């Protein structure tokens, strides 16, 4: 019978032949490797997802270190927010505009293309650089077609992590501001 090619009857139980199991390892390994490679090649790349305009929805405290004044999930005061991005002019008007040309990724700000953006790791680190020098790095907590959540280490009035929530779109607002 055909099933006897693959199975053995041992102590009244059906078991898979070891030779078949050994081959199955290679089949499974190849399947996983090709599957993962195909997904990496053809699935929507985080770089492509990030491209475009993002509008700030809010800044919140994600983690706060021993502070009675600041609590988790509370909205971050405008002043702290402004301080946190004082060195990042392209992000100060509440619109984050990630552009990509053939050879350059830049954060658009008026006519300026001085600030470049890069994704690192498995696409979970967003780096902003100016003249190839690191200016700031964010941890990408969520990146979907319509929402971007970033974490930023704060080390100012209070030590902690800020959660920045952004929404895709806002092209009109951006145009208005410009």
């Amino acid at each position, binding site marked *: 019978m055909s099933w006897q090619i693959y199975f053995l009857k041992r102590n009244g139980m059906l078991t898979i032949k070891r030779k078949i199991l050994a081959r199955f390892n290679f089949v499974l*390994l190849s399947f*996983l*490797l090709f599957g993962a490679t195909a997904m990496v090649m053809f699935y929507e*790349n985080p770089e492509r997802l990030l491209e475009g305009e993002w509008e700030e929805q809010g800044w919140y405290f994600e983690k706060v270190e021993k502070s009675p004044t600041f609590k988790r999930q509370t909205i971050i005061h405008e002043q702290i927010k402004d301080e946190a991005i004082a060195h990042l002019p392209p992000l100060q008007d509440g619109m984050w505009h990630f552009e990509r040309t053939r050879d350059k990724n830049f954060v658009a700000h008026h006519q300026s293309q001085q600030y470049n953006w*890069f994704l690192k790791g*498995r*696409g979970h680190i967003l780096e902003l650089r100016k003249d190839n020098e690191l200016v700031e790095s964010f941890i990408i907590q*969520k990146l979907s077609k319509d929402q971007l959540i970033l974490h930023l280490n704060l080390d100012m009035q209070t030590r902690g992590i800020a959660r920045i929530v952004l929404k895709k779109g806002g092209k009109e607002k951006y145009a208005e501001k410009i």
Partner: protein
Amino acid sequence: MLRKYSNHRTIQDNIKLGGITAFSAGMVNVASVIVFFSFTSNVTGYYAVFAQEMAKGNWYQGAVVLFWILLFLIGSMLSNLIIIHGKGRLSSYLTHSIPLILEIISILFVGIYLDFFYEDSLKETEVLVGALLFAMGLQNGLTASISNSVVKTTHLTGLTTDLAILISMFTKESNRTNRLLVDKFHLLLSIVIAYVLGGLLSGISFAILSNKTFYVVCAVLLIIGLYDHYKLYLVKKQFVKRHRQSVSLTS
């Protein structure tokens, strides 16, 4: 370091091999964290990250992490395949050198690519991290295979556990005089120290040499490959010298 196999290896052989390979693994790991924000000498954390990304519905990131884990696995598997199938066909030195050569090629590829072609894109990062994980898989597979799983140098989780067990065992007088346990302790300690030193050197080297640090790793790995060659050369030289002396004495 590379010629001897399994139980024929002495503790000195294992300490030398473990020390130098752990040193190179520490270097690769720190350099890759600096350049790519990703660890490359261990995959333990990646299993957790894979599960986390899948749970969050980040299929792309999950696939990238799975791809990295598989490359480490394939590297280790390839190492052992070369060793077990090369046995009896090629000399043990040559067989054990092939995974090391492949590892050097992988790391050299990363160094050259970073130096001349790297444009900081995510795709490139993913492939280069994959190449380094493949190289570390090759190294771990090689050291574990030829030392009967005594030497494992790219990750320190199991090693730290073993070290902790030994430290607690040494609270008993009888264990402190047990040669086997003391030897194992020396081996584990040298691997830990070498790994940390490698990481430190890599951090310093990166500040000075930048991406060329990967060439330094290749040079360190070359020492392992050439050490046995040098030893064989010395033995051969001594043999020829003695042979000549005996010939001149008889004549």
